[in-house]
Every structure is written in C-alpha cells, then in structure tokens.
C-alpha cells in the first residue's frame, strides 16, 4: 500500500465497512420474511466477503466472489423465486406452531455453535506466517497450480459442474409443457 499518514485509518474504515456488510448481509439473509430480500442480504454479504478476501490479499478471489455469487448465484435464486413463488407469503403462512420456542431453540443452537467455534479460534495460539512462501499467489500461480498439482480435482469439479447442468436441465425440463 502506498503509505500516507492516515492511510492505515482509512484502510481500517474500509475494512470495518466490509465486516459490517458481511454481518448485516448475513442477518438480513436469514431474518427477513420476504425471500427476495434475503437474496439481497446474501448479495450484500457476498460483497462484504469479497472485500474481506481483498484484505486477505487475494483480489482475484474477491472478484470471483462477486462474479459468481452476486452475478450468478443470486441472480439464479431470484429467477427461481420469480418462477416458483410469484406471490408474497400470506400472513397465514407465517404463523408457526411455536413461534417463541422455535426461535429460542434455533437461536440457542446457533449461539452455541458460534461460541464454540469463536472460542476455539480465539484460544488457539496462531503461528506467525511462514517465513518463505512457495509462490506469490498470483493469478498466474493459481493457473499453473490448477493445471499441475490440482489437475485431478479440477477435472472432477468440471465433471461435477457438467453433471449439475445436465441434472438441472433434466429435472427442470420435465413437465415443461404440462401447464
């Protein structure tokens, strides 16, 4: 980073903004009634996450996060919402058998998970970064690694994607002209 006197604080501010986006996005995603808003929450969360990836010195992944999650995953979900749920849920649907109890149970489980994992990560004494790094982690290095060290997983992932596309087509195509 180019250092000028206040740059650290500026960066901190940007960092906090990304953290806030991630947290807020995640909360919106699980807490809103309207499904379309929770997709928006996911999108905001992903943008925040992309910023965090940038701070974790991987701009490439940051952009991929936006490209794939915001540009593809969220759009696909909204598209499915349009196809599958044309109307807002009626209030009647929102009535749950035990509203308070359900909320408390889910919140307790989630809090437990959060406490456990966060405790674990805070208590662990983290080592300092390795002195020498194998490579520079650039896009070029990623590309080389993908086609050498990780070529088998790469091929498998492509296969999975292909199967997913075919499967999605097969499932969605069925009953196309039924209505």
């Amino acid at each position: 980073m180019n250092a000028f006197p206040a740059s650290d604080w500026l960066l901190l501010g940007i960092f906090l903004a990304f953290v806030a986006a991630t947290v807020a996005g995640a909360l919106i995603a699980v807490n809103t009634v309207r499904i379309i808003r929770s997709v928006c929450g996911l999108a905001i969360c992903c943008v925040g996450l992309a910023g965090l990836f940038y701070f974790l010195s991987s701009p490439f992944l940051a952009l991929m996060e936006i490209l794939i999650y915001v540009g593809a995953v969220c759009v696909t979900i909204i598209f499915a919402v349009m196809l599958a749920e044309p109307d807002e849920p009626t209030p009647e649907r929102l009535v749950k058998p035990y509203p308070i109890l359900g909320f408390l149970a889910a919140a307790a489980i989630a809090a437990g998970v959060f406490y456990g994992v966060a405790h674990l990560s805070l208590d662990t004494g983290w080592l300092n970064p390795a002195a020498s790094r194998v490579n520079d982690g650039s896009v070029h290095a990623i590309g080389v690694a993908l086609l050498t060290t990780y070529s088998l997983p790469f091929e498998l992932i492509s296969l999975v994607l292909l199967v997913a596309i075919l499967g999605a087509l097969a499932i969605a195509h069925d009953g196309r002209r039924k209505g």
Partner: protein
Amino acid sequence: MIAPKESTAGTPSNETFTLNLGPQHPATHGVLRVKLTMDGEYITRAEPVPGYIHRMHEKMGENRTWAQYLPNTSRVDYLSAMTYTHAYVGAVERALKLEVPLRAEFIRVITSELNRISSHLVGWGAFVMDLGGFTPILYAFDDREKILDLLEAVTGSRLTYCYYRFGGVVADVDTAFLEGCKAFVKHMRPRLDFYRALVTDNIILRKRLEGIGMVSAEMCRRYGACGPVLRGSDVAYDVRKNEPYSIYNQFDFDIPHYPQGDSMARYNVRMDEIEQSLRIIDQAVAKIPEGPIMGKVPRVLKLPVGDFCYATEAARGRLLVRVSSDGKDTPYRVRLRTPCFCNLSLFEEASKGMLLPDAIAFMGSLDLVIPDIDR
C-alpha cells in the same frame, strides 16, 4: 394452528395471470383494450374489449340529413377517409340513381388511391414501430407528407377530407395536382425499393414475421376478415375487381395475394398494394377527361324508401355502407360494415398459444384503426 393444505397448494389462478394490454398501451395505437390471459409469456386467451372510443357514428346518421352525415364518414377510419366517404356517397347515389360525371369519377379514383397509399404507409410504419424499429415510420411519414400536401391543395384538409359529394366532388383538381401526382408516382417507386432493402429484406424482421400469426382462408371466411388479411391467406378477393364500383374496371391492376397466411404475407400484400395503387394513379392521371365535376343533384335530398348498399375497398378491407331510408330527409338507419372489426375478431382465435411479442406483431399485421372498430 396449521393452515389447511389447500390454502397453499395453489388455485388455478396461480397458473395464469391476466394482463391488460391497453386501453393505453403503445402497441394498440389507440384506446383498444385486449384482456390477455397469460401463462408466462404464452397467451392462453386474448379477449379484445372494444368500446373505449365508441362515438356512435351509426346512430348519429339517424338524426342529421343525408348531407350532414358526410363529415362523419371521414372520421371512422381516419387513415383512409376517402374510401369511406366514397362508400357512403356511392350508396346515396345508387339510391337516387345519380349520374356522376366521368371526370369526378377519375378524381375519386386518384384521390382514393393516393389515400390508400398514405394509409398503407402509416400502417407499415406503425407496424415496424410495433416491432421496435422506429426510423421507418418517419421515412414513411416523409412520403406520406407529399400525398397530404397534394390532397390538402385540392381538398383543403390533410386527414378528414370530406371531399366527395353526392354526384361528384366538391372542387376540381388543377394541373398542378395532376403534375404532382405524376411526380409522386415517379418519386415513390424508388422509395419502395428503398423500403424493401431497409425493412422487408431485413433478417430480424423476416424472423419475426415469417410463420407467425397464421390465419387460414377458412378462418377469414368464418370471421368475415377482409382486405390484406384475407389476401394474405391466398384469397384474391378485392372489391375493386370482384364487385367493381366507380370506374375501377377501366384500369389495369393486379390483386396481390400470398399463400402463406402469416404476418409476412399480410405485410407483403400491403407493400405490393402500394405499387398497384401507383399503377392505377399513373393510368388515371394519363386518361383523366375534361368536363364537369358535379352531376345534377336535387337541392333537397329525399331518398326513395328502401335499403341501399355500396361496398368499396378501403385500405383495410371491404367497407360496406348500407343506408335505409323511409323517405324522409334523414336516414332511417346507417350501417357501416367496417373491415377492422372483422379483422380484430379473429385475433382471439388466432393468437391462442402465441408469445406476447408475436401477438403484438400479429396485431400490427392486422393494421387496426381503433375508431374503425368502435365506430
């Protein structure tokens, strides 16, 4: 408190939804409402709801004298006003057995054909505009302006001419008009080639029109569709040839007709009709005789008791005017059998299962004028 299963396991209304195309919609060119029942972008039912611009033209005929009804006739289909006046004037002349001077008949033919060209130009431009191409309509209006200038110089009006009278026409044409007609014919022929290269041959337009909006001759017959819609379904029926009126049997022209029955066929029929109209104008301007423009007409018009019909080929199809007289100086009943109403009525059947943009293209190919539907 569990909701019953049926409440969420949707009703049929979940499958389809109703889309109101109009009464204010860019593609209906007026206040026509089409109630579409859609399944996604597919139309399951299209119900035209006319009546938003109903002006009681037929009823108005019953409380004004024969001559006073003349201005109304240009306002039904404002794009081809001449042919409408022609039909009404023709019906009254048939009743009174009036002789129309030859020169007046020639003037009627020339102005009617000019009017037909201008109507087809607007129809063409609006059609292409429905398909999303905005520029052609302005080129069409450029050419149409030339026609309107010619007609304005003769009739004094650019749209609702009210030029024909019982027994002739109201004002004579001068040589400037005839020269102007010749010049226009000369100007228009290369323009048609230009239109063909710009629009008709365009692959996007062809892809949108070919095979879309199929209308069979049998369907036309059932609904009484006429004009370019009928001729696009391979029925070479044209009032000017099949039940010749005025002096159309003196001219040499063809009836363009196409066998496909799709939107492209109707489009092509109109484009070819412009060419045929140019041919008629060419011949009429060359042959126009000197002479009076008004026959002998009684001062006070009283039609004999009875029904009198007169059919003309308006730009959009067969227009029939039927006047009933009970011997008074006002009509007992004026009935207009307008082409657009019949052409629209087949929309419901033909558009079933169509995609929305195709239906819009189909509606454009019917070339509807909404006041003509509602009257």
